[in-house]
């Protein structure tokens, strides 16, 4: 039996120093047709930190994440405001392709293109007008180093990306995203399809990356959230229930629903 929790009682932190924020949503709601999937999400994400979104399956965390760079366009209706550098990017006139260049995304299943490793990284760069060969090579190296993949693949850049292992593929996807020089990186359960060793590698990569990027990661692995994130938000049935520093979330959850979830006596 699923316990009934009140959606009235929430604990969501706010930030006073507005310049330190990477992205922020106001009253974000998501509808799949008639289905109301996300209710009034008001969250702000600090720069150069890792924020983890946790919650059970169907809690709306992925839906929320995909709304941030407008990946839900054409799939769901998203209302409310998403503030990014002082611009509400949840507006019709906004160039969604520009947004996605600035707010990169990595998905649950590694999805490298069926191209060579190099081509995976340079394809989108070239499409964006970067033509100089030396510069492209530079980006390939930098981003692969950033994703901690360089040493493993540097001699085989022309090999098919599909020949890499799952963990390598996922890091390639991260490299591909950071090659675009975004400032926010969204990750949707990036390790759920990976083995533990690969997971550790990806986590190390992320910890390194937060120096340069603001990272928002959806995970259902609470150990992972506690290992890598500074802030942690808990989603339940389309509601943001608690948003506090990660230490607080795991040692001293504020409201009953989070307490039960953390303790594993949920539902």
């Amino acid at each position, binding site marked *: 039996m699923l316990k009934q929790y009140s959606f009235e009682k929430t604990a969501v932190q706010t930030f006073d120093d507005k310049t330190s924020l990477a992205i922020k949503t106001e009253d974000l709601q998501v509808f799949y047709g008639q289905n109301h999937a996300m209710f009034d999400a008001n969250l702000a994400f600090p720069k150069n930190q890792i924020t983890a979104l946790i919650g059970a399956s169907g809690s709306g965390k992925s839906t929320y994440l995909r709304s941030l*760079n407008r*990946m839900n366009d054409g799939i769901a209706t998203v209302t409310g405001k998403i503030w990014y550098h002082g611009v509400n990017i949840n507006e019709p006139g906004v160039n969604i*392709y*520009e*947004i*996605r*260049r600035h707010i*990169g*995304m*990595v*998905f649950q*299943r590694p*999805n*490298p*293109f*069926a*191209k*060579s490793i190099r081509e995976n990284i340079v*394809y*989108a760069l070239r*499409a*964006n007008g970067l033509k100089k060969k030396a510069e492209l090579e530079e980006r390939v190296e930098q981003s692969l180093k950033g994703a901690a993949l360089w040493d493993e693949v540097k001699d085989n850049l*022309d*090999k*098919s990306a*599909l*020949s890499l292992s799952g963990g390598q593929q996922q890091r390639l*996807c991260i490299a*591909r*995203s950071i090659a*675009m020089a975004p400032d926010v990186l969204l990750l949707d359960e990036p390790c759920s399809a990976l083995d533990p060793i690969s997971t550790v590698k990806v986590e190390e990569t992320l910890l390194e990356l937060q120096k340069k990027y603001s990272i928002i990661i959806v995970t259902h692995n609470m150990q992972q959230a506690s290992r890598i994130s500074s802030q942690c938000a808990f989603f339940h049935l389309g509601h943001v229930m608690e948003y506090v520093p990660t230490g607080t979330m795991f040692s001293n959850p504020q409201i009953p629903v989070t307490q039960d979830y953390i303790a594993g006596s949920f539902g």
Partner: protein
Amino acid sequence: MNAKRTDLLATILIDLIVASVVGILFFLLAYILTAGLPHVSWSFLTGATDAFSGAGGIGVQLFNSFYLLVLTMLISVPISLGAGIYLAEYAKDNWRTSLIRSAIEVLSSLPSVVVGLFGFLLFVVKFKIGFSVISGAIALTFFNLPLLTRNIEESLSAVSRSQREAGLSLGLSKWKTEIGIILPVALPGIVTGIVLSAGRVFGEAAALIYTAGQSAPVTNFADWNPMDAASPLNPLRPAETLAVHIWKVNTEGLASNAAALSAAASAVLIIAVLLFNLGARLLGTYLYRRVTASK
């Protein structure tokens, strides 16, 4: 009768059916090849047809068939590619899309003779282009479009959603994603479909009798300027294809060896179609390997 015995009988019956189906195919192939191949020679393949009796070689018809095929593909592949992309990527799930889909279905289920007569009405009667390669190619395009479109849409849709998301999440436009990311992955399926449809187009006759015409004037194979009347590339000349030739030799042919002639032409046609089939398989597998594995 007990169940075991019924089971055995049914199995035997089905085996017999399968044997007869296989037998039919082998009979057909063996018949065409044994009846036709002895009459196939280099001079038959390249020689000119005697306009009066229909005797002689099939050089011009063979060329016409290929030329018509190439023209048809040049017109129909880009259009069905665009239409396939529309259906796979842009079409929303609403009544308009389902109307479009049924229109395509209707087009694909039209008898080819109706398509041919429409071509006749439009190009020969209305536009007064006359029986010509271009009329034939466009009629064949009508006939080819729905199948190719569906094949392309299916191949594109079969590519994982995650590939699209990968492209979009990098800030690529939908179009660029479709063309640069999805299309290469879908290419093996698309190419297979195109080559298979080429086989169908190559063997089609009913749609061509009244569009490309039933005469194959001897052309000057030294003249490759498409604007010259005698040039084989001139899209305005009438062009009897191999398949139409077979039909004509059978119904109209006066040559004393009409049966041998049409058998030989049929053998050539069948071999061409078999090659298309085989080519589709090999090319499909090759491209699939190329796209997925290392280069």
